[in-house]
C-alpha cells in the first residue's frame, strides 16, 4: 500500500541543502508491521515525517495505493489525512495540555466532520475501550495521566478516523521499561485486529524482535539492510546491524559490557566516500572506501543488503 521510491529529503544546513534521507526505497503492505531502525540522526524520523507530509522530498515519490502523496490536493488530501495517521514519540508534547482526553479524541472527528454529536461521544468511548483505557479518564487532562496512559490516548486519537496506515515514531522511547511492553503489545494487537499497515520507527532492535514482521536498518540516510525479522535477528549480514544487535543489553549474556561500536555516526555535513559505515566498520576493506555498495536482493527475495563483503560472498 505505502511505497517509497528513491526518496531524497534535504534540509538547509549552513547555507546549503544537505540530504538527510538519500534515495530510500521502502514499502509497507496492509497488515504488515515494518520496523525502521537506526541511530538518532540517521533520517528515520524524517522518513516518517515525509510520509505524513510534514516534510517534502526533493526527489523520488511517496505513494499510497499508487497515488503520489505529495501531489494530493483538496478532497484527495482530506482522504489521505484519514487514511494515514501518526503516533509521536513524546505523548506529553503531542497532546494539548489544555484538552481533556475526551476532547482530544473527538478533535479528529470534528476536523473531518465525522458523525453527529452523539455518534462522536460513542466513538470516543469506543476508542478508550480499544486502547484499554478506563472510561473514567475521559475528563482528565494529559498532566493527570501517566506516560503509558498518555501514549494510549495519542494512539486512540490517531485511530479515531479509522486510518489504514499507522506511522509510529519511537512511541515507547519516552516510557519506562515495564510500560513499554504494554504499549508495544497494544500496538501489535491493534495492527492485527484492525488489519493496519504500520511503519514503526525505533532505535532499539530489542524492541523490534517480537513486534515487527520485517525490519529495515538505516544508516546515515540510507537503508543498509532489510529482511524478515527473524532472518535479520538471527543472521544479520550488515556489520552495522550486527553492531546494533550486540549493543542490546542481555540478561543471559556475560554481564561485562559487550564490545561496542567505536565512535559515532558522522554528521550530515561530513563527506564520506564509498560506504558511509566504513570509518566505523570492523570488516572494512579498500573497496569500501572507494565505492558505495548497492542494495543487492538475495538470497531470498525478501532480503537485501548493501555491503561489499556480503555482495562478494553472494557473487
Amino acid at each position: 500500500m505505502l511505497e517509497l521510491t528513491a526518496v531524497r529529503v534535504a534540509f538547509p544546513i549552513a547555507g546549503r541543502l544537505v540530504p538527510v534521507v538519500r534515495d530510500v526505497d521502502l514499502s509497507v503492505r496492509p497488515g504488515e508491521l515494518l520496523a525502521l531502525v537506526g541511530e538518532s540522526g540517521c533520517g528515520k524520523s524524517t522518513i516518517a515525517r515525509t510520509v505524513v507530509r510534514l516534510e517534502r522530498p526533493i526527489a523520488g515519490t511517496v505513494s499510497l495505493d499508487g497515488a503520489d502523496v505529495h501531489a494530493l490536493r483538496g478532497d484527495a488530501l482530506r482522504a489521505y489525512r484519514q487514511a494515514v495517521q501518526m503516533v509521536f514519540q513524546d505523548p506529553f508534547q503531542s497532546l494539548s495540555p489544555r484538552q481533556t482526553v475526551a476532547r482530544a479524541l473527538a478533535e479528529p472527528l470534528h476536523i473531518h466532520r465525522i458523525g453527529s454529536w452523539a455518534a462522536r461521544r460513542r466513538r470516543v468511548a469506543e476508542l478508550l475501550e480499544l486502547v484499554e483505557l478506563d472510561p473514567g479518564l475521559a475528563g482528565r487532562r494529559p498532566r493527570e495521566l501517566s506516560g503509558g496512559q498518555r501514549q494510549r490516548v495519542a494512539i486512540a486519537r490517531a485511530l479515531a478516523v479509522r486510518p489504514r496506515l499507522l506511522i509510529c515514531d519511537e512511541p515507547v522511547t519516552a516510557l519506562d521499561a515495564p510500560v513499554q511492553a504494554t504499549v508495544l503489545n497494544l500496538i501489535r494487537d491493534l495492527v492485527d485486529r484492525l488489519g493496519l499497515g504500520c511503519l514503526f520507527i525505533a532505535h532499539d532492535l530489542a524492541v523490534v524482535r517480537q513486534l515487527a514482521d520485517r525490519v529495515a536498518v538505516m544508516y546515515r540516510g540510507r537503508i543498509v539492510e532489510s529482511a524478515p525479522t527473524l532472518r535479520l535477528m538471527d543472521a544479520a549480514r550488515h556489520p552495522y546491524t550486527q553492531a546494533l544487535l550486540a549493543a542490546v543489553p542481555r540478561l543471559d549474556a556475560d554481564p561485562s559490557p559487550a564490545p561496542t561500536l567505536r565512535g559515532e555516526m558522522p554528521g550530515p555535513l561530513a563527506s564520506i566516500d564509498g560506504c558511509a559505515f566504513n570509518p566505523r566498520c570492523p570488516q572494512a576493506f579498500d573497496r569500501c572506501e572507494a565505492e558505495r555498495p548497492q542494495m543487492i536482493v538475495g538470497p531470498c527475495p525478501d532480503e537485501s543488503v548493501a555491503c561489499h563483503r556480503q555482495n562478494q560472498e553472494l557473487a
Partner: protein
Amino acid sequence: MTASGAGRRRRTVICALPLLGFVMAGALAPVIAPYDPIANDLMASLARPSVEHLLGTDQLGRDQLSRLLYGAQASLILAAAVLAVSVTVGVVIGAAGGFLGGWPDRVALWLMDVTLTLPSLIVALAILGVRGHGSANLVLALSLTGWPPFARLARGRFVSLRRSAYFDALQVLGASRFRILFQHALPALAAPVLVYASIEIGFIVLSLAFLSFLGLGIPPPEPEWGQMLIDARPYLDSALWLALPPGLAIAAVVLASNLLAEQFATDDLPLVRLGLPRRRARMNGSTAGPYRVEELAVAFAGRKVVDGIGYRVAPGRALAIVGESGSGKTLSTLAPLGLVDATAQVSGRAVLGQVDLLGGGPAIREAVRGRRVGVVLQDARGALNPVRTVGALLDDAVRHAGGVPRGLERARSLELLTMAGLPEPESQVYAYPHSLSGGMCQRVMIALALAGEPEILIADEPTSALDVTTQAQIHALLADLRESTGMGLILISHDIAAAARIADDIAVCYAGRIVENGPAADVVSRPDHPYTRGLLDAVPSPMAVPGTRFRTLPPAEPARRKVGACAFAPRCARAAKRCHVEEPPLEPVAPGHTSACWVRPTVARPIGDEGA
C-alpha cells in the same frame, strides 16, 4: 535562594491588592462616590478633610474623594481602551509573524524593533500636539507604542507552537490552519496576555497622569489624577491634602504593577539548584569506606515519597537502583546531597567516610557536591551551560574541586576529557555544548563529575536519552572509570537489563521503598520479589519468538497507597490476604540477597521457565 511557595503566593497577592483596589474604585465610582465630582460648591472651597468631605475639597469646593474615585474610573476606561487596542494590534501582528514565518515574520519583527526604539511619551506628545486633545487621540497616542510587547509575546508563543510535536500532530490529523489558530493557539495565549496587561496598567496610568499634568490629557473639569495634581500645585503650602491623595494613588498603582511584574518574572525561574556552591569548605576524614544511606525518608507536604530506604556502596563497587518513574529512586540518591526542592523534608542518615551528610546544615552537603560526590544527569545537554565552552565549564569545575595550581586548570581539564573518552579533546574544549552529540555531551558531563576525584559517582539515567550503541559505549566507560579510579558508582535506571550490565549489586525500588536488594547476578537469575520478576519479564528477550507478546506487569493502581500493606499487592498476581494488611520487611533469601515479600514459593523457580 528559593523562597517557599506559600511566601511567594502571599507576596503576589499583596502586590495585586492595590491594582484590584484601583479597578474596584474605578468600576464602582458612581455608586460609592459621595458627591458629584464636578459640582462646584464655592461655599466649601478648600475645606480640610472632615467627616463631610473625607479628603477635603479643592478650590472650587469639589469633593476630593469623589474626584479621586472618578479619576480612577477615567484612568481605568482609558487604560482598558489602550490595552484593547494594543493587545489586538500586537497579537495580530505577532501571531501573523510567528504563525506564517518567512517574510511576514521578518516584517513583523522589523515593525516591533522600530517601534520599540521610539520613546513612547515623546511619540504621544507629538500625536497629541498634532491632533489635539480628546480621549480617542489619547488612546491612539498610547497604543501606537504599546503594542510591541504583546506582539513579541504572541510571536514567541506561536513560533514555539509551530515547532512543537503538538502542531505536527494537528497537521497530521488534518486540522486546518484556521482551526489550529482559533481552537488551539489563541486560547493558549490568553493567560500570558492577561498577566502582561496587568503589568502594563501601571505604565498607562503613569503616562495618562503625565500627559494630563502637561495639559494634554483629559480636559477639565472631568476628574483625572494628573489634572488633580496640577490643580493642587498652587496650594502645596496651604492645602497639602489636595496633592497627597492623587499622588499616592498614582504611586501605589505604578509600584504595585511593577512589583507584580517582578513577582511573575521570578515565579518563572526554574527551581533546580544544581549550580556549583560558592563557598569552599574542605572536609577532613575522607578515609575510604562505604557510602551508607540508612532509613532515608523524603516527604513533600507530609506525603512520603521515599520511605525508609537504605543502601551501601563500597569503593570500587557499582550499585544500580532500579525502578519506574515516581518510585523514589532519584530522590533517594539526590536528597542526601541536598539536590531536592527546598520544600522537601529529608530525614535519615547518609554516611560518607565519617561524615553524616544529613547530620547538619546545608554547608555539609554543599561541601561534598562536585568534590567527594559527582553527579551525572540524564539530560546532559540541558545540564550544561549553553553559553560556555566545554573547556570553560571544565576549568570551573577543576577550580571548584581545588588542588590544581592556578593556570594549570586547562591541563587537568584535558586530562579529564581524555578519561571520559571525548575524541580530540584539544579541539573540543573550544566547542559549545549545542554542537556536540548527545553521547558527547554525556561524556563532558562525566568529565565534569570526575573533576573532584569523587569517591562516589551518581549517574541518574545517564543513557536513557541516548541511542543503543551510544548507551553501550557510556556503560563501558562508566565500568572502566570505576575500575581505574576505585570510586563507588550508583546507577539509577528504569531498565533492569542495562543495570545488570554494569552493576555489582541491584536494589529494586517500588513506591518509595527498596523491595529487593542483592548481587546483580542473583537478582537477575533468581529474583524473589514478584515486582522484580515483572521487571525482568518485561525486558525484550533476544531469544523471544517473533510475533509473541511482550510480557507485562499489571498496570499501576491509581488508588492511594494503603498504610500498613504491601504497596505492590494491588498489582501482584500472588498477593495473599496478609499482603493487604501488613507491610513485609526486607528479609534475607540468600547470602547478601534480601527481599520484602510475604508470599514465597517453597522452591524458587529460575527465571524463564514460565510459558510465554
